[in-house]
């Protein structure tokens, strides 16, 4: 499953370096080009400032969890990483973000290409009103990543990857809206993985799923690294502990603290982080 790597040489090198590193968590010092590197990132909508002064490096081939109380700007930050906010009226941004060494917001960066390289899974499953098969290959077709003859096999491979193949193999041509919520979310994951992204952003992907489906999705996500870089927003601190190599704590539009997950939870450096992880607010 490690072939879930994009065709971008920069990323590939970085990922190979990552894979070569010790399996027990990435090193504290980032020795390779980060998947994302944020310097003094500020985001606002119109007169409202949502994020300020975010400095953050996200190592390739790792799982990073973003946690923090509601309204602190996690979703906004995530949507800035795949340029989804570009379309929001009044969106403004300062500081720099680079995607594997390239300026994400450079004039010559095509947002469509960015979004292919940086996939996203939303809080609520959002399948397209097309057949299951067409859902999976929608991105592949839009980016013309494969000839028509290969689309069927891409569907099968992607659905197998997320463990949905057995359940839907006999109804690929029918509506995705008859699937259960968890199955719909897996379908959306298959759709996101089908275009072979380098990074996957997940915004509370399991908040509408039952514990069993949640565990399935978590196992799946773990199996995708280090071929894939994962950034996941979650309100479920236990999930962050289970899943993430590093955890980032946001509060009030600022990045308060970041560290290895165990470290951040056992031994938070900041007062706010300590309060949050011990359940005293948020």
């Amino acid at each position, binding site marked *: 499953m490690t072939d879930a790597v994009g065709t971008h040489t920069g990323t590939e090198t970085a990922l190979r370096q990552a894979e070569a590193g010790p399996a027990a968590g990435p090193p504290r010092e980032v020795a390779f080009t980060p998947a994302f590197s944020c310097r003094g990132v500020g985001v606002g909508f119109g007169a409202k400032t949502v994020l300020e002064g975010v400095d953050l490096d996200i190592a390739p081939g790792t799982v990073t969890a973003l946690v923090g109380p509601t309204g602190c700007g996690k979703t906004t930050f995530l949507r800035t990483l795949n340029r*989804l906010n570009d379309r929001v009226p009044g969106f403004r941004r300062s500081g720099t973000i680079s995607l594997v060494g390239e300026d994400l917001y450079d004039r010559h960066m095509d947002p469509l290409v960015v979004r292919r390289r940086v996939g996203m899974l939303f809080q609520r499953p959002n399948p397209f*009103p097309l057949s299951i098969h067409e859902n999976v290959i929608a*991105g592949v077709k839009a980016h013309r990543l494969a000839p028509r003859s290969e689309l069927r096999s891409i569907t099968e491979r992607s659905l197998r990857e997320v463990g949905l193949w057995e359940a839907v193999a006999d109804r690929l041509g029918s509506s995705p*809206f008859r699937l259960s919520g968890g199955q719909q979310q897996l379908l959306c994951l298959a759709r996101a993985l089908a275009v072979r992204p380098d990074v996957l952003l997940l915004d509370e992907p399991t908040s509408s799923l039952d514990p069993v489906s949640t565990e399935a999705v978590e196992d799946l996500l773990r199996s995708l690294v280090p071929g894939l870089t994962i950034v996941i927003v979650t309100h479920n601190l236990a999930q962050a502990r289970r899943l993430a190599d590093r955890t980032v704590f946001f509060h009030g539009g600022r990045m308060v603290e970041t560290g290895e997950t165990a470290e951040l939870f056992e031994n938070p450096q900041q007062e706010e982080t300590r309060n949050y992880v011990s359940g005293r607010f948020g």
Partner: protein
Amino acid sequence: MTVPVASPGRPVPPAPDGRGPSGPRWDAAPGVIRPRHDTEGMVRWGTRLAALLPGAALVGLAVALLIEALPAIRGNGFGFFTRTTWDPGNFYNPPVVVNGVARPDGASYGAFPLIVGTLASSTIAMVIAVPVAFGTAMIVVHKLPRRLSNTVGMLLEMLAGIPSVVFGLWAALTLGPFLAHHVSPFISRTMPDVPVLRFFKGPVGSGEGLLTSGLVLAVMVVPIIASTTRDLLRQVPRGTQEGAVALGMTDLEVVRSVSIPWVRTGVIGACVLGLGRALGETMAVAMASGTVLGTVPRNVYSTFGSMAGVIVSQLDSALTDATGFAVETLAYLGLVLLAMSLLANIGARLLVRRASTTALPVGRGI
């Protein structure tokens, strides 16, 4: 919201239908409120009646028309659909009896040119109106700022409410002559002599005809389709559209894989409404077509008669036919028009059923 709480010492009575207490009812003194089943029965019968009403109206209308048209159906036979003549006959000679039905001497009716004219003008209208309406709705929903979008929506609804006679005047006095002098000659000259496009060649006439009628019908149909499509497009969930954007799709691809599938069935329904309007539109077409009888239009500039237009323009003189055959024939024509509208509707429904194999999670308009 405040939840009503029973006063202490007074137990909450169970709701009579077991659906649980609701509203202030269980705090009121007994007898103040009418027993519930009474009103529910009324509501039930009222809704049943209301549900039957449209069907009853449709059947009643069709039957009344059929009874009125029966002599004409017998007298004209099926040749009615293939003949091109429209001759009320000579009212001063003694009537003759054909197929057991009395008619003026020499009377002969054929609806073929009218059916062709009606279908052709409606086709022109739909070919123009559907893409224009969809484009308008897309722009209103996705490209215009909210305030402007509401204004445009209001203008669309106003356009839909303009009396058709005003459109007819505009077509006859302004649009028709303009086309005949400045547009049609150019189209007629430049169109290649190939099938379909051949109908755009030939003499351009003076402005009354199929093209003018089709255009004015398009202007009347666009608001119907556009306003429904706009409402449907507004219902497309943001999250689904963003999912497509997040996959790296262009705006056009988002429209193709999310918006259109989402609104398709509803838009087809709106198009049928529009087609029904175009087929049945009377005044504007009567004024813009030239209302000629007995000739099949030969190109898109030809004058023609529409079924609805002929019914309204011929009714007065038909009433002077002492045998009643002329009026019965107009009723026959009306019946054919009714059948055409119903067929269009049923056809669209079948189309909708085919198109909606991908069931949506929510019901949509129409």
